[in-house]
């Protein structure tokens, strides 16, 4: 039975009514994976045997009607920078090619507790640095809508797996747009949650003050169910917010189960479009999509206004200093001593250097260099500290603007998916594809990407919604009105 093209909600209903079993669902998705992988390459590692056991356990839970959640029996893919015990977690890097985590990330524990079925680990840009999935040490992932195009990055494998029907939902991570931009390129929904509401324990660190784990799925509703599962306070993450996800669920509009009530919530809300977000480098197709989304929200009774967020002009530059600085510090641990690659040398100092130069790809080295420079003696004040001050201005700018508007509407990415090879030789052009997603990470606020249509070249186009901290479920509710889910999976 063909089940891989359904949403999490549809499958949950089929599983709950016992019309299909978790094993049948898993078989359908695995068959699809084997069919599509030669052309997509979304996965770095499949966990078939373990998945089968998890599906059997899920079926027993359904039989006994015990511990059932929305995720029980649902096949989920996990980005390869999130630790799954006893399975390789490589960050798509030669450096961690043979690394087997001795523990599960908190988000993985939560998925397993809820009865989800883990399919495997998905491809990404090495150490989550990149916007195209081309920086993987194990070959690029291809966009299911056009295999000559990139799926976006860095969570490109996760987004492509959901878009191609190779997973019902997926976990990714987002430091500057790594969930939202690939979601946009692949035509799926992606949420970067509020900083601190999803544990980072077991997520391999890139830039700790910006990194967040979040869901990718075929609808906003599906994303809300994954968020409910993975969110909540975790004492193992020192930056975890001391709030239970149930406290946020007071804002979960889907639980009210009454679309009339959601509509009341949208009515008379003021939604801002920051002028700075529609710059010259943005495709007309994308601008048009934002206008159409604005029209749709107005037709539901919201008021759409143009706003000014002047600090956004320096968000990208600020981001590259902060993210690279934190990365250079986080990646100092890869020295060939305790785990990962080691290139043997006679002296330790030589071993560190050779191991790092051999194990890290070019983009990772470039960012380590920029970050080390920004933190180095004599340049710290002018570069790193300056960037942290600018982050304060950006945050203040958002705080002020949220007094006038309850949400912002923007493009997710200035363009639809680009061709493989088109931007890889020019780091700066590649960085510019994150220009709209980066501000949310700097401000720590939640941001959602929802597909709203197709470009003239028949590639998915999405818009982004931004909300104040802890309004993640509001975003998902509004997103559910904007999303145009593709009826056909490529």
């Amino acid at each position: 039975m063909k089940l891989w093209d359904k949403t999490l909600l549809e499958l949950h209903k089929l599983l709950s009514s016992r019309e299909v079993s978790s094993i049948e669902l898993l078989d359908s998705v695995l068959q699809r994976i084997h069919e599509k992988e030669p052309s997509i390459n979304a996965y770095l590692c499949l966990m078939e045997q373990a998945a089968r056991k998890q599906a059997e356990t899920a079926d027993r839970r359904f039989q006994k009607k015990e511990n059932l959640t929305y995720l029980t029996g649902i096949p989920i893919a996990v980005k390869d920078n999130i630790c799954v015990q006893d399975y390789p977690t490589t960050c798509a890097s030669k450096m961690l090619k043979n690394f087997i985590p001795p523990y599960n990330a908190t988000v993985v524990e939560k998925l397993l507790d809820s009865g989800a079925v883990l399919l495997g680990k998905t491809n990404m840009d090495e150490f989550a640095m990149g916007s195209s999935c081309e920086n993987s040490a194990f070959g690029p992932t291809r966009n299911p809508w056009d295999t000559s195009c990139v799926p976006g990055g860095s969570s490109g494998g996760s987004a492509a797996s959901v878009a191609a029907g190779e997973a019902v939902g997926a976990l990714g991570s987002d430091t500057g747009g790594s969930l939202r931009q690939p979601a946009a390129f692949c035509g799926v929904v992606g949420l970067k949650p509020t900083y601190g509401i999803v544990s980072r324990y077991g997520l391999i660190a890139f830039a700790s003050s910006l990194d967040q784990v979040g869901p990718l799925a075929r609808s906003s509703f599906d994303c809300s169910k994954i968020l409910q599962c993975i969110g909540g306070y975790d004492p193992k993450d020192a930056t975890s917010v001391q709030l239970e996800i149930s406290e946020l669920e007071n804002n979960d509009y889907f639980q009210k189960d009454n679309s009339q009530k959601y509509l009341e919530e949208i009515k008379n809300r003021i939604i801002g479009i920051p002028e700075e977000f529609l710059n010259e480098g943005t495709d007309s197709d994308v601008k048009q999509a934002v206008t159409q989304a604005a029209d749709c929200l107005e037709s539901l009774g919201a008021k759409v206004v143009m706003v000014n967020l002047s600090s956004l002009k320096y968000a990208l530059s600020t981001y590259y200093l902060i993210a690279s600085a934190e990365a250079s510090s986080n990646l100092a641990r890869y020295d060939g001593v305790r785990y990962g690659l080691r290139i043997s040398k006679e002296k330790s100092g030589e071993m560190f250097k050779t191991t790092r130069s051999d194990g890290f790809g070019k983009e990772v080295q470039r960012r380590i260099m920029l970050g080390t420079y920004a933190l180095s003696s004599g340049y710290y004040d002018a570069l790193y500290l300056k960037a942290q001050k600018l982050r304060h201005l950006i945050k203040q700018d958002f705080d002020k603007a949220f007094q006038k508007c309850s949400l912002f509407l923007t493009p997710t990415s200035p363009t639809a998916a680009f061709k493989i090879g088109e931007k890889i030789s020019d780091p700066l052009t590649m960085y510019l594809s994150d220009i709209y997603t980066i501000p949310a990470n700097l401000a720590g606020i939640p941001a959602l990407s929802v597909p709203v249509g197709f470009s003239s070249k028949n590639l998915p186009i999405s818009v982004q919604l931004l909300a104040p901290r802890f309004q993640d479920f509001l975003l998902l509710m509004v997103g559910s009105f904007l999303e145009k889910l593709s009826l056909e999976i490529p």
Partner: protein
Amino acid sequence: MDPYQVTPELVKHIAALASLDLTPKEEMQFSKELNRILDHIKHLQSINTEEVEPVFHTSWTLNRLRKDEENPSLPPSMILRNAPEREGNLFKIPPVLEMTSKGDDSEAFSEEDKTSNGL
């Protein structure tokens, strides 16, 4: 000293700080690329931030201390499973310091030290 420009000598210095071994060709390549990126972010210096406090992260939490309680941690065998080279319960690495015949200090460790280190 303009912070938005790097010379090949400075790149060499940064690579040493970052423990990266660059070929002369890579040094040139990184100089070029870093200068392009720095040129792009140069506009930051014109923004006045004198009165602004830095924000290092956005979760608004203060240092949170855990309770001083004993908890089981992962067994050494699990941790050492990923070690490139090990000896007993230790990670083994090549020498850090030069050994000289005169300064051979293998006797500096008592037998007791060796045992407690798992040797």
